[in-house]
Structure formats: structure tokens, C-alpha cells
């Protein structure tokens, strides 16, 4: 019974493997092996790497979800969110940082578009701009915490561990900052590999996957900016 089921399964699998192997051997020689595979009935032409990145991003979204939920519950049930002497968050400066991340998302899609069209120099230019955007964002966050040419939030009295307001703020924004740092490192590797010509000839799959991570970082910041920075605290005397 079980052996017949196994042979039946093998029988249905074999042709697909044969077709893919044949395609890989002839038409798509040297291209991304995933692209040679026949379209999957459920995931279409999405490569294994892309599906893997999406499921990683789902789990990462739940990590952020947990932190934001803790923040929401603490804040929603607190009678006084800002303790006396604690500074307000700078909305205008952070709006600039938000705009910077949105711009770097745009340069990322432009880099991918250039890679699809096989323009290596244009891909490098836009990847470089994306990395620059991420690095500037991190510099901005450093300035916000520690202050460059002026007091930072820590100098003004927002200290981790002193209040729920300070702790949730630093935990959420620094966890996001770690993601930006990871994204900048990841994109630098992609930049070097593009420079070496690894993604020439239609092999742009890795650039798209790196782009997914980068856009996710932007997406999370949109949520963080809205709920941590923009939602105003109760009017305190």
C-alpha cells in the first residue's frame, strides 16, 4: 500500500524534474536555476529565496508586533505617560528621517528595475544611494539619542529604565535601528557582488530579495513613526 503510493508520487514528480532539468540544461544555461523551474501552482514564479524572505519577514513583523503591543498596552493603561522633566520627541526631525527612508526605498526599486534591464552602472548608482540613505538614517538616530552639535534625548533626561515611556521608546527605535544597520550591511554585500558582475545577464533575484528586506525596514518605520512619535500624549500640566 505504502510502496504503491510512493511510486505513484514519484511518477507524478519525475516529469516536472525532467522538464526543469532539460530547461536548465539548454535554454536557461547560466541563469538563475529557480527561473528555469516551471511555475508553481501556488507561488507562481516566486523563487525559493523570495518565499523564504517573505516568511522570515512575517516572523520579524511579529517581533515588532510584540514590542509595539507592549508599548500600546503600557501607554493605553497609563494615567501619566510623560513624567515631569522628560522631553517631548522631535516630530519635525523624525519626519525628515521618515522621508529619507521613503527616498531610499524608491532608490531601491530603481536599482532593481535597472538590474532587470541589465544596466549594471545604474544598478550600482541606485544601490549606493540606498546605502547612503540608510547610513544617513543611522546618523540621524545617533544624533537623536546622543546629540551631535546639541543635546540628545539622553542629555535631556530620557533615560532607558527610568520610565515606561523612555524604555519602550529606546527598545522599539533601537530594534528598528538594528534592522537598518543589518540592511545597510546586506546591501553593501549586494553592492560588491553587483560590482563583481555576479548579477549580470538576468540574475537579479538576489537584488529583489535584498530589496524586500529593505522595504520591510521602511514599512516598519512608517508604523513606528506614526504610533511612537505622532500619537500625542495626554495634555500634561
Amino acid at each position, binding site marked *: 500500500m505504502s510502496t504503491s503510493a510512493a511510486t505513484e508520487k514519484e511518477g507524478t514528480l519525475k516529469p516536472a524534474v525532467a522538464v526543469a532539468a532539460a530547461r536548465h540544461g539548454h535554454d536557461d544555461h547560466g541563469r538563475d536555476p529557480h527561473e528555469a523551474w516551471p511555475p508553481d501552482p501556488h507561488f507562481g514564479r516566486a523563487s525559493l529565496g523570495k518565499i523564504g524572505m517573505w516568511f522570515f519577514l512575517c516572523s520579524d513583523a511579529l517581533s515588532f*508586533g510584540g514590542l509595539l503591543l507592549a508599548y500600546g498596552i503600557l501607554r493605553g493603561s497609563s494615567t501619566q505617560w510623560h513624567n515631569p522633566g522628560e522631553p517631548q520627541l522631535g516630530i519635525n526631525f523624525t519626519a525628515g528621517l521618515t522621508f529619507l527612508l521613503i527616498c531610499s526605498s524608491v532608490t531601491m526599486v530603481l536599482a532593481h528595475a535597472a538590474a532587470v534591464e541589465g544596466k549594471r552602472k545604474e544598478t550600482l548608482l541606485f544601490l549606493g544611494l540606498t546605502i547612503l540613505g540608510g547610513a544617513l538614517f543611522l546618523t540621524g538616530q545617533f544624533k537623536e539619542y546622543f546629540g551631535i552639535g546639541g543635546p540628545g534625548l539622553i542629555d535631556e533626561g530620557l533615560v532607558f529604565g527610568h520610565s515606561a515611556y523612555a524604555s519602550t521608546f529606546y527598545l522599539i527605535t533601537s530594534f528598528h535601528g538594528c534592522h537598518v544597520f543589518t540592511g545597510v550591511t546586506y546591501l553593501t554585500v549586494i553592492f560588491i557582488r553587483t560590482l563583481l558582475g555576479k548579477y549580470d545577464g538576468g540574475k537579479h533575484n538576489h537584488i529583489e530579495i535584498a530589496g524586500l528586506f529593505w522595504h520591510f525596514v521602511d514599512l516598519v518605520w512608517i508604523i513606528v513613526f506614526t504610533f511612537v512619535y505622532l500619537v500625542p500624549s495626554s495634555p500634561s500640566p
Partner: protein
Amino acid sequence: MAHVNRKEYWIVFGALFLLTILEVGVVYMGVPKVPLFLALSSMAIVKASLVGLFFMHLKHETPILRRSVAIPMSIPAFYALVLIAEGAWRKLPW
């Protein structure tokens, strides 16, 4: 090599830019707390969806991949809604 239409990207960029300005503007306008919170949350959800659908190409993926992403990501949002509403309800003076 295939040509990529970039017009969609620029339209999405414009929408994200305008919504960010609108979000900051609404905070300074002094709108009452509940409508302000609703306006900010809905704008954030629209912005996040725009990034997911167009920049992350979810619009062009199969429905199964789209749902595999959208359903898990919306669960914390519902959970947040319930828990924050509960916390705020406890705080009311009664």
C-alpha cells in the same frame, strides 16, 4: 532585456510623501484625540500597504503568497486594537 515601467514607483513615492506631510500636519492642527488617532492609524495602514503592494511587488505575486503575508501580519493589529481599547477603557473615570 525587459523594460521596467517606473511610473508606478513615482506615483507611490508621491503618495507616501503627501501622506507623511498630511500626518505631521494633522498633529499640529489640534484635532481632538480620537479622530486624530483614527486618522493617523488609517494613514499609516495606507502607507504600509502601498509599500507592500508596489515596492515589495505583492501586487504581482500569486494570491496565495499575498494572503500568506497579509493574514499573519494583520493578527497583531487586531490583537493591539482589542488590548489597547481594553487598557483605555479601564482608565476611564468610573
